[in-house]
């Protein structure tokens, strides 16, 4: 009996160390492959893009962006279109004092046209932060047009969703560029807050008109009393028309002084080096929805 007891005690010591192995399960939902990504601060282009989606530091010689925007501010709806082009001089990079790459000085063309509407030449400034101080640096010019400008000139009333925007650059004989930029269908979203905050199961129910293919980006931004938008987080998911984002993600963002959010739905078509060498050409549909949280 002593031997048995001893065997039992040794067995308990030897074999009882492990824990039951976990079983790995695969999640099967209709909102698969959701990516969360923080948006760097100060990246919003307040002129036309509250989302900060457009990365101005794209390392390409030609960067062209056409954006159709719908802004829903409670019951008010406004539509707008923005068109711009930047020609980077990649032989002339701009860096901060500590060597951080900011971008490139830009090149100037004779003229740039979007759907035969000549874009304006405006300053291309880059805002960056050193310590707690924001600094502007002038990189050169960018070519810019808006839907409102086009309307005033009677050229094009609405952004051509699910169509094309003709882009033409005149920079001298043999150096002209022309191609059509395909545009996505317009995205129209809806935001609802569902669930019980005390039970920690409250979530944003995001719905939009689905294309059934490709991806969408949804950006969450705060908006201050001056109407300044600060994009915080980008969520990418399949363009299937629905996404749920837990409210607790914004636990540190929403407080009694800051109860407004801007939710931006974006559908885009990106083309890299397709129409011309070393280029990044993007067309987007963006729907910005401002909501005040209870």
């Amino acid at each position, binding site marked *: 009996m002593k031997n048995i007891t001893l065997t039992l005690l040794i067995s308990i010591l030897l074999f009882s160390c492990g824990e039951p192995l976990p079983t790995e399960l695969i999640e099967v939902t209709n909102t698969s492959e959701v990516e969360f990504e923080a948006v760097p601060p100060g990246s919003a282009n307040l002129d036309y893009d509250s989302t900060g989606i457009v990365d101005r530091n794209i390392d390409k010689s030609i960067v062209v962006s056409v954006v159709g925007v719908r802004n829903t501010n409670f019951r008010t709806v406004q539509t707008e279109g923005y068109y711009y082009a930047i020609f980077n001089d990649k032989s002339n990079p701009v860096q901060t004092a500590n060597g951080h790459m900011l971008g490139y000085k830009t090149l100037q063309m004779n003229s740039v046209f979007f759907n035969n509407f000549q874009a304006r030449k405006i300053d291309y400034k880059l805002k960056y932060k050193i310590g707690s101080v924001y600094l502007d640096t002038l990189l050169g010019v960018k070519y810019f047009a808006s839907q409102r400008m086009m309307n005033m000139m009677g050229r094009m009333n609405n952004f051509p969703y699910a169509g094309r925007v003709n882009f033409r650059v005149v920079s001298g004989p043999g150096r002209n560029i022309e191609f059509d930029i395909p545009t996505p269908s317009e995205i129209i979203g809806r935001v609802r807050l569902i669930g019980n905050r005390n039970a920690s199961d409250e979530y944003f129910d995001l719905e939009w008109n689905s294309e059934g293919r490709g991806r969408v980006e949804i950006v969450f931004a705060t908006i201050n009393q001056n109407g300044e938008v600060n994009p915080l987080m980008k969520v990418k998911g399949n363009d299937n028309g629905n996404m749920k984002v837990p409210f607790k*993600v914004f636990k540190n963002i929403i407080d009694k002084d800051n109860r407004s959010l801007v939710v931006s739905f974006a559908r885009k078509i990106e083309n890299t080096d397709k129409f011309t060498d070393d280029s990044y050409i993007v067309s987007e549909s963006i729907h910005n929805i401002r909501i005040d949280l209870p």
Partner: protein
Amino acid sequence: MNGLEGNISNFSNTKDFELMASFSFQNENRFNSNLYSLSISKAFGNHNFYFRYSPGIAQNFIIKRSTTIQLPDTVANLKTEINYSEKFGTSYSYKFSSGVNLGLSLRYFEQTFREESPILFYTDSVNYISIKEEELSDNFWRGDLGFDFILNDILSISLSTINLFISKEDNSSEASRLYSLKTEKGIHASFQLKSNNKFMTKFGYEYGFDKYKAFYAGLNYSFNLAGGIITAGTLLAHDRFRQPYISSVIPSISFTKDGYTISAGGIIYALNNTSKTTESLVNDGIYSLFNNPYSTDRAFVNFNLALSFKSKQFVKFIDVSIDSDVYPTLSEIYLNKPFATGRVVNISNEIVEVRPASFINGINNELIYSPVVKILPGDTVDVSFFTTISNIEVDKRKIEQADFYLYTDKSEPDDYIQKPVLIHDKNSWDGNVFNLIYFVRKDFEFTNKYSREILNKYPRESTADVFRKIKILYDEFSHSLEYVSDPRSSTESVQFPHETIELKGGDCDDLSVCFSSMLESIGIQTAFVDYKNLGGVSHVNLLVNTELTPSELFKITNNDNKVVVRKNEKGIDQIWLPIETTVLSGFKDAWTAGADKFNSEAIEKLGLSKGTVIIIDIY
């Protein structure tokens, strides 16, 4: 498995303490062993208690979600961990008889859901997303009832509930709603068939009132080896949520010897690659942590140790029968004649010497041991229980509990049983004339004094010989008494001599006992003459030894029909006088009546030859 999964009623044959340890082994991608359960059971008579700590009864899941987070240096997948475990269980059962057992079990389940979710932080200079882990728990108690019916040596049936009552901590979270263990109510029925103690088959069915359905069927075979018992068997199981129809095989083998059992077994699934998606977990759920759609092949090694604070049992009672009532005054007869007989079986594998013992409350002052009996292995024998009477002063007839014990070589008895015994009062008599002797002897002190007082009233020369003493004593005795036929309305009651003197009367038994005691106490031999009358009332009177030889007959009478000649222990003939003690008109009449009766019944009717007249000497 020895546990609450298949034994809700906690049916157990544990005699004392039993310690059980079960280890689980799995080899899924990597080898893993863990303590499956550690349990202890303790029996207090028919009450049985069981407690189990079960770290291995668990099912853990990791759900790798399709949600990713772009961290500064990498992309992280969010995950959710779900841990189900049965932390401990306890049960109680009561054995109403060797065939009926009722039990109640309680089990505590823990469910934790650890969910990772993104959380956004931002400052003036930086926005970043971190991963926050949130843990929710949803624990509950499960209680069930079970019954066992052992109909005979062959068939036994068990019935138990599934999730009879659930006591849940309040939790209304989404994770709890989606992933909680299923607690569908149902019943579990099984029956077991034994054959020759070698083959045993078992069939069980689990019926949930909604979705859950399962059954199992198995066969065991036992044989002796190396002084122990080997049992090998296989169980086939069906589970509605697993494919194919017979989804698993559960082989096992065990070795039992001297209070310990080592067993090994396992569960082998026909298909291990069942759908492992969150969808199936949410839709089908988990009904059992022991066997569910996500369980994989597993081996078990179990140790059962009967911690014998009680020694091993060698023999046990089958029953005890009471052979006779107890008559306190007849105490000495129980030294030679058993008052009870026990049927005892040797359940060990060795020859056992059994020392039976008994204790009758109110009669014995201590345990009375009976002669040792040797029993061969497996044999059943009858064991006699003798006793002595320590206290004869029993005034009323009553029923007392007698305790019967079987001792082997230990200080504690191997088995014990209690039976009621009828204890008569001190005047009760079993009707056997031989046993009147005890009434004679019990009052010698009184009768000796009484006889001497009478004789002392007479001159020494008138009491010099035995005949004269007999005559004087009888005359005095008869003058002070009268014959009363059965004063207590019972032929089974006899007065002690002092009672007869005090009551101044009695029936033939009382008077014969009294006069016999008066003579015996002063050294005069007497004998009872039992006149048996099968159709009527029996009668008893006395023969008294005058110590005269036949040649001296003339000294007392000329009529040789008035005496009986008997040889003493030296072979010398002596003259005995028949005395009819119910004739109280004097010695002469009693002698004459006694002689007439004796001559008529014993001699003329050949009573002595036929056995209808018996002479019982009082020694």
